[in-house]
């Protein structure tokens, strides 16, 4: 991702250029979505509408692709990224309950971002720390053997 001005104008003209390149080519959908997500960090609704129009793919199908692949997101990333491991080891040690607790605390589902823009949540497969499960990461920090009750304290430490 490039640095510098991220104002709407520049992003939009980059999107225009991208769409011009693939206009009328339905088969380029996944590629275009990738590049659009690189531009914006996520896939805003307006962008998906424009992609659909330019590539001549129905919006319902565009959304079908976006919602099928977990690497696409329609939500802007939060300030803090929470990843919950649902690999086998973590799962048997209670990752499910932990995830439920986080969803409840933050009022969101995996793939979403809290309304205040603080946290995004995602579910991942094995983080390579199976002995320490259930494991979550918040940004770069690894939290091991997380009991659901500890979640509010953990989140509070990041919230500001």
């Amino acid at each position, binding site marked *: 991702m490039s640095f510098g001005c991220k104002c709407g104008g520049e992003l939009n003209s980059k999107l225009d250029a991208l769409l011009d390149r693939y206009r009328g080519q339905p088969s380029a959908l996944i590629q275009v979505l990738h590049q659009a997500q690189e531009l914006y960090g996520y896939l805003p609704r307006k962008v998906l509408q424009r992609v659909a129009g330019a590539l001549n793919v129905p919006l*319902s199908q565009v*959304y079908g692709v976006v919602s*099928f692949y977990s690497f696409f997101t*329609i939500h802007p990333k939060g300030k803090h990224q929470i990843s919950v491991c649902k690999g086998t080891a973590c799962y048997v040690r209670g990752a499910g309950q932990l995830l439920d607790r986080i969803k409840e605390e933050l009022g969101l589902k995996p793939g979403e971002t809290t309304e205040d823009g603080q946290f995004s949540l995602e579910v991942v497969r094995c983080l390579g720390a199976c002995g320490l499960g259930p494991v979550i990461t918040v940004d770069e920090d690894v939290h091991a053997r997380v009991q659901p009750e500890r979640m509010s304290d953990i989140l509070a430490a990041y919230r500001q």
Partner: protein
Amino acid sequence: MSLVTLTIDGRQVQVPPGTTILAAARQAGVKIPTLCYLEELNVIGACRLCLVQVEGARALVAACVTQVGEGMVVHTNSPAVRQARRLNLELLMSNHPQECLTCVRNTSCELQQLAAELGVGEIRLQGEMSPYEVDDSSPSIIRDPRKCVLCRRCVAVCEKVQGVSAIAVQERGFDTVVAPAFLAPLGEVNCVNCGQCSLVCPTAAIHERDETDKVWAALADPEKHVVVQTAPAVRVSIGEMFGLEPGSIVTGKLVAALRRLGFDKVFDTDFTADLTIMEEGSELIHRLQNGGRLPLITSCSPGWIKFIEHFYPNLLPNLSTCKSPQQMFGTLAKTYYAQKEGIDPVRIFVVSIMPCTAKKYEAGRPEMTSSGYRDVDVVLTTRELGRMLKQAGIDFESLPEEDYDAPLGISTGAGVIFGATGGVMEAALRTAYELVTGATLLSLDFEEVRGLEGVKEASVNLAGTELKVAVAHGLGNARKVLDAVVNKEREYHFIEIMCCPGGCIGGGGQPVPVDNEIRAKRIAAIYQVDRQMPLRKSHENPAVQALYREFLGEPLSHKSHELLHTHYTPRERF
């Protein structure tokens, strides 16, 4: 072409290469159960209820997607086959609500039927239910994802037949659901309410909005004067709800049945179909003679109207400004008829019996109130009326034949053919020809515009000018015609477009199942009704003539414009 020989259940069968096992078995009279398969439209091998055993193959194969091979030996009824099919069905049923007794598809549901045929004795598997709720945002169509078996038949029809793609498969794994983009409510997207999805859905996961309660209530209300209109297509299809052959003509029984239900007057949309011809025919002649915008495109099909508003808003000026026959009827019932009979229009309750789910949407459009009231109060589909008659204990087959009430029940053959693709065009040509040339038509049958061909073209000599016309049915075909016009590949003066394949006889509110054979039978019945009518040209309808004399003045008069014409709204493509 040399044929392939194979053996199915011990019998030799010869079929062309490339045939599927399913088709070969059907040819041999062997029934293989299917669920996701929809001929030519949805051949995806997803449900695996059509499994068969092929000798030498490692696993059972899906008959709908597997081609025959020379010398193939197929078993469709071995213990392994029966067990595998049943297990797959049980898996589908494991997260399905057990609500058959109260379900709109009770007795017309393919899943239910399969459970009976495959002998699922008990529900051994209980899975988690779908996390999605019923979507009742649309005025026409209810989505109930809990009952969805993810066969994708609706998705295929919406995309390939209608070219709309309002719905698609969203999310994945357990969360997979058929829905609009962003899982938005169907009532808020570009769905045109055609209901073709509800015709092919094997279950009640997509069905018409049921509004029979409102009609029962109106019928029971002594204050209300309840009148009913029946669309042309209903008289050749509702018999199917009672086990009659497709294409059975039951006009007289339909009228009798509606009287038995308690309607105060039984009228006919064919009357306002004739009226539409007077207005639209005059509009055509006016545009031809005054350099108006051409081609003129018909406007009686509300799914088509919503489609053009979303996808071709630039062509809206080409649409005829005529309201549909249903809406003209509603307006006149609460103005002309109310005056004539001295009934306060507040008391008049107009019910339509339509082959169409989009008519529900049309009746609720904000501009459809030119009588000063909501012009049409409730629209019932053919299926809903069938259910009402059953609830009322009416023995349809044994009913006598009765006649429509005057004056809004008087019609000609030109009105009834509105029910089939090409019918509006033909009716308009019959009248336009005689009005323009002053001569009598020798043959009334315009064969070129009839039949199930997706796009039909014809050219008619109107007093020296060649009138070029086109007819399309199914919105995918409509797209072809419109694109040809936009790209200037074709020039027409007049285009008829019907939203549903086959025209209204194939409407989204008609009895299930529907296929081309059934469509053809209903169409043949429509033309038979036309042939048997004493009058077959709209301008000869005495009740329409009286309406102009007593009330409207003449076609395209100020009053006609006020009451019978409308305007359109450009909408977003997505």
